[in-house]
């Protein structure tokens, strides 16, 4: 079953800018899906159309088999939106905001109170439920947006850069929470600038650039395309100048950490042996987790180079 099907979706704004150019996309039910792309690529426009905040110029949107044009009621009931910017009433309390949201979706007050307690507890906001929302910290406001979006228990939750400006500790706890609700059956679509976040959370991703989907695949399959693997090594006695190794690329991160790029399929014992010969002993190692970022930069970089080449050829 598919949670979201977007067919030939187009959006041209009144100023003539085309934000989405005949996009096709599908997201499976139960997926944790990442929508990536540089600023202005069309991510928020796509989300805005699905959430009915932006009117489409053409194409179709279906959420769990319900067509947006024919049955917006069913689409909206299935959908929860966590927007990029804070858009709650800054004069209302945390509790009023989530209770009102439930009411807008037709959830009776008695049930809304139970859910409000559950989600505010889960997101660490219960103690602040009587606080006026504008007095919350940035991280709390982000969590309030998530609690509000979950009050009608949507089947599809769309989060537009939910951890922007959130410190690492809080970001990790939000990841855990999102993994938990995804495991319970809620399909999640996430846009983020933190590619480490997408790599850590998402099973499938789409990369959007200049209003077109340039990649739509499984994260693992995408990472397979990297010809090298990157590792972070904690080392002792890192010399001032790094040894030049013909098959491995080394980069100093700090006085005790080294980043090593190893060709895919090459045994790591070779790397350790060469390092040992140069007097560097490795005490621990881990995978570099933002490999997706490298791939992302390469893909967009290739595209830019392709365009420049095309220009040169035309001129």
């Amino acid at each position, binding site marked *: 079953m598919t949670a979201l099907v977007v067919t030939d979706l187009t959006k041209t704004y009144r100023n003539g800018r085309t934000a989405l150019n005949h996009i096709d996309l599908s997201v499976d039910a139960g997926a944790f899906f990442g929508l990536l792309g540089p600023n202005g690529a069309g991510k928020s426009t796509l989300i805005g159309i699905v959430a009915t905040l932006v009117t489409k110029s053409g194409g179709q949107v279906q959420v769990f088999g319900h067509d947006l044009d024919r049955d917006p009621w*069913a689409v909206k009931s299935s959908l929860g939106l966590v927007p990029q910017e804070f858009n*709650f009433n800054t004069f209302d309390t945390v509790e009023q905001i989530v209770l009102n949201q439930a009411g807008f979706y*037709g959830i009776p007050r008695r049930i809304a109170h139970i859910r409000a307690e559950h989600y505010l507890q889960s997101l660490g906001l219960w103690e602040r439920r009587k606080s006026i929302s504008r007095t919350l910290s940035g991280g709390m406001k982000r969590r309030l947006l998530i609690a509000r979006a979950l009050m009608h228990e949507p089947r599809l939750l769309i989060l537009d850069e939910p951890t922007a400006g959130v410190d690492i500790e809080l970001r990790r706890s939000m990841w855990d929470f999102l993994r938990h609700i995804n495991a319970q059956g809620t399909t999640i679509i996430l846009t983020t600038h933190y590619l480490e976040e997408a790599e850590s959370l998402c099973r499938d991703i789409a990369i959007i650039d200049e209003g077109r989907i340039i990649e739509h695949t499984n994260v693992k399959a995408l990472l397979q395309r990297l010809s090298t693997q990157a590792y972070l090594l904690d080392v002792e006695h890192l010399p001032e100048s790094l040894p030049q190794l013909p098959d491995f690329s080394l980069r100093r991160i700090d006085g005790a950490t080294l980043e090593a790029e190893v060709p895919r399929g090459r045994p790591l014992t070779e790397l350790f042996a060469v390092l040992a010969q140069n007097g560097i002993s490795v005490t621990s190692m881990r995978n570099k987790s933002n490999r997706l970022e490298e791939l992302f930069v390469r893909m967009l970089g290739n595209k830019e180079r392709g365009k420049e080449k095309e220009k040169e050829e035309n001129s």
Partner: protein
Amino acid sequence: MSDRFAAEGQRYPRSVRLRASWVALKTIAFKETNRYLRIWIQTLVPPAITMTLYFVIFGALIGERIGPMGGYSYMEYIAPGIIMLAIITNSYNNVVSSFFGAKFQRHIEELLVSPMPNLVILTGYVVGGVGRGLCVGAIVTVIALMFTSLPIHNWAITLSVVVLTATLFSIGGVINAIYAQKFDDIAIIPTFVLTPLTYLGGVFYSISLLPEFWQAVSLANPILYMVNAFRFGILGSADVNIVFSYVMMIAFIIGLGGFALYLLRRGTGLRS
């Protein structure tokens, strides 16, 4: 969880939609009512002070020198008009400021992404506007009773005209807020359209005092009919035909209501 949702491609039963819409309507109406009651110093006290000054200055001080109007003391004559003036401005201002505030802070998006029909959004805001109009109307009536007696010729006409007028101007407030892009825009209509039309709508005088030409011009002012219909409900006399006043108010409510729903459906000023 899935049993709460309609099966793929299936529509939700009408009863489910109606029940949800009713809950949504109660939520907006409660939220809007709570808003103007919470900030009562800004919403309920100022009209009470302003209208008291009208009664003191125009009714008690100047009114005694003016003498009777339309067969009533000047204070008796202007009381219904002043009550109506308060109801019109407050029902309009309540909705225009609340709706535009929601647009400005972007929490209008909470309503737009929810499944509630546009009619529920419009009705919810109108309930808030009518509620504040009635509250202020009641306060000003109590103040009026300190200065003069209000015989109430016909309760049904008095109350129905109040509700219809407040409804009409609440819808007007929604339309103004939909088009408004900055705070200045929500002051333009009240300042340059509503206030002149209200003051020239027979609040302080009978149009029979005017030359024939200006009488005819005054009859093109819709507020004249509302003020006079209300005055008829209280005093039993009016410058205009009461049936025509009702027809006009209902026609305006249907026309403006339909236009507001059209704007909400198109997403004018709300969706990009």
